[in-house]
């Protein structure tokens, strides 16, 4: 059961790698394999949420020797969102025309890497799945193979290779000080290890994950890449791939190195505030919708950083809820920003409202959770500053979203409607309806993020 989604994506990817993905039937086959994998993840999720975490040791080795796969509420919530985003972005590309023979296979390999990463219980395996996802995304970044995409792909590859090297060094340092690669055992042994070595390992891992997330001092690659690549690939990167950073912060930072996370929480809060302000101001100054959304992505991850730094069940559940909702928002915005008819404009407006946190869109609930988090911060001045920054960030996002909306659609909307493939418009409208649906009925998302947060705090159900 636990292996099913992984196996579906991996075998599907291997099979499709041999076929020509430009053909319509192969493209549809890819979509159905992705849907089957998504369904398998959803079934796994239902199982985990009703019966508790599942664990499988690969190759029937005894526990502690073999590599473990572990599915808990946190991993399942993330893998379900990431696969969903990949499925939507893939269908969007399929609704137009797939231009490269490797696109379906690479999407499936990306799904394999992400699912494996969210469901593994072994730190080195985390790195291996991380690399599977990254290598697929390096090639996806060049998708389209125009000059702009190639340049974006080179920047993306070099910067993220540097991130991977740092990540590897961090994981191995953790192995050296704890003598194990099993995440749960590392977490159990960290309290008896000297503080300084784990702090060094933690710093390496934080920088590597920060590069992935695109938080303030490590953001320099992000705008060039997100505006350079195809809209569907940008949606995959910003919706699914960036979740690695948030997941790593939660799983490694909060789950394995809570002591070091507590020590470094002032740093995280400062970087988070810097990201929110920098991303917001840069977005206001941009014209192109994809550049606006790219800088907005830098601002949005700042909230995750602040929520993780404050921690506790309120902070972690806010971080998880925000990451999930942000993934859907970014997918919606990148896909809708790619079209210029008025229906796509409607979807873009819903996405903008969701980013700004206006009621009825689901972003409202993530902003509410974040504000609640900022109220439980340590001490009165910090609470005031954080609440102020959250409100400032919200105002800035409302401003840049409506600027870019007006610029893109008010004028363009008067042209002949539905010039691009109508299926594409239907896909973004469905995403917009989903955003409104969860905005009106957020209970399942709130419950899921709460359950996922409890897996990070020992001693809670």
């Amino acid at each position, binding site marked *: 059961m636990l292996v099913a989604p992984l196996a579906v994506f991996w075998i599907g990817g291997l099979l499709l790698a041999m076929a020509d993905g430009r053909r319509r039937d192969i493209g549809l086959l890819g979509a159905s394999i992705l849907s089957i994998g998504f369904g398998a993840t959803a079934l796994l999720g239902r199982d985990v949420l009703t019966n508790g975490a599942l664990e499988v040791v690969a190759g029937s080795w005894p526990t502690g020797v073999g590599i473990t796969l572990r599915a808990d509420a946190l991993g399942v919530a993330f893998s379900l969102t990431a696969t969903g985003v990949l499925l939507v972005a893939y269908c969007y590309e399929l609704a137009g025309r797939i231009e490269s023979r490797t696109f379906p296979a690479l999407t499936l390999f990306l799904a394999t890497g992400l699912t494996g990463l969210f469901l593994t219980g072994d730190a*080195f395996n985390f790195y*291996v799945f991380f*690399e599977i996802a990254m*290598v697929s995304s*390096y*090639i996806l970044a*060049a998708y389209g*193979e*125009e*000059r*702009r995409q*190639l*340049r974006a*792909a*080179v920047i993306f*590859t*070099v910067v993220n*290779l*540097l991130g991977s*090297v740092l990540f*590897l*060094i961090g994981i*191995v*340092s953790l*192995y*050296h000080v704890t*003598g194990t*690669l099993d995440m749960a055992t590392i977490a159990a042994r960290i309290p008896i290890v000297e503080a300084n070595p784990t702090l060094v390992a933690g710093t390496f891992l934080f920088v590597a994950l920060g590069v992935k997330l695109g938080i303030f001092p490590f953001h320099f690659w992000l705008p060039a890449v997100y505006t350079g690549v195809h809209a569907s690939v940008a949606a995959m990167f910003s919706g699914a791939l960036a979740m690695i950073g948030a997941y790593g912060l939660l799983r490694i930072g909060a789950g394995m190195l809570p002591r070091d996370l507590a020590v470094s929480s002032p740093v995280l809060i400062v970087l988070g505030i810097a990201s929110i302000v920098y991303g917001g101001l840069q977005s206001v100054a941009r*014209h192109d919708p994809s550049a606006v959304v790219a800088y907005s992505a830098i601002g949005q991850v700042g909230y995750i950083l602040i929520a993780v730094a404050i921690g506790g069940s309120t902070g972690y559940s806010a971080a998880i809820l925000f990451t999930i909702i942000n993934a859907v928002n970014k997918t919606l915005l990148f896909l809708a920003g790619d079209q210029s008819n008025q229906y796509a404009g409607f979807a873009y407006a819903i996405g903008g409202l969701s980013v700004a946190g206006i009621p009825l869109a689901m972003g409202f609930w993530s902003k509410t959770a974040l504000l609640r988090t900022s109220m439980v911060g340590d001490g009165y001045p910090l609470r005031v500053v954080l609440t102020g920054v959250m409100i400032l960030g919200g105002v800035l996002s409302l401003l840049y979203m409506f600027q870019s909306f*007006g*610029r893109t659609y*008010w*004028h363009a909307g008067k042209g002949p409607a539905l010039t691009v493939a109508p299926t594409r418009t239907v896909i973004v409208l469905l995403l917009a309806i989903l955003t409104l649906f969860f905005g009106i009925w957020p209970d399942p998302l709130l419950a899921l993020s709460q359950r996922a947060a409890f897996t990070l705090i020992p001693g809670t159900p």
Partner: protein
Amino acid sequence: MTLLIAVAIAILIGSGSYLLLKHDLIQVVVGVLLLSHGANLFIMFAGLQKGAAPIYPLAPNSAIADPLVQAMTLTAIVITFGVSALLLSLIYRVYIAHATLDTATLAGEEERQERAEETDESADDPEDDAAILVEEGRAL
């Protein structure tokens, strides 16, 4: 021994980072390779104990080297190999498309492209703004 290895890792990672900042994309690739080799050496010497090769039959009463780090290094080497092949092919495509491997020239081209796009935009910008202003006026 530990100092020697530490210095070797420092040289590898230091020169790798230096090359990563160069303008020539081939030098960037060499930088990435040196960085990865530094990381591989780091993994090898992060082992928990040193000793004879961990191959059966083991000699009695002698320490054996930690086999796990060797397995990890091997995995990391394979990944590095694949990724650097990919990076080289990507750079080859860049060379075909732009006829240059110099990042400064590439960035210059990007700027030129952006400027060209901007002049396009500014051509219809006044009209745009006017339309938006009219819309806003109506809304008010």
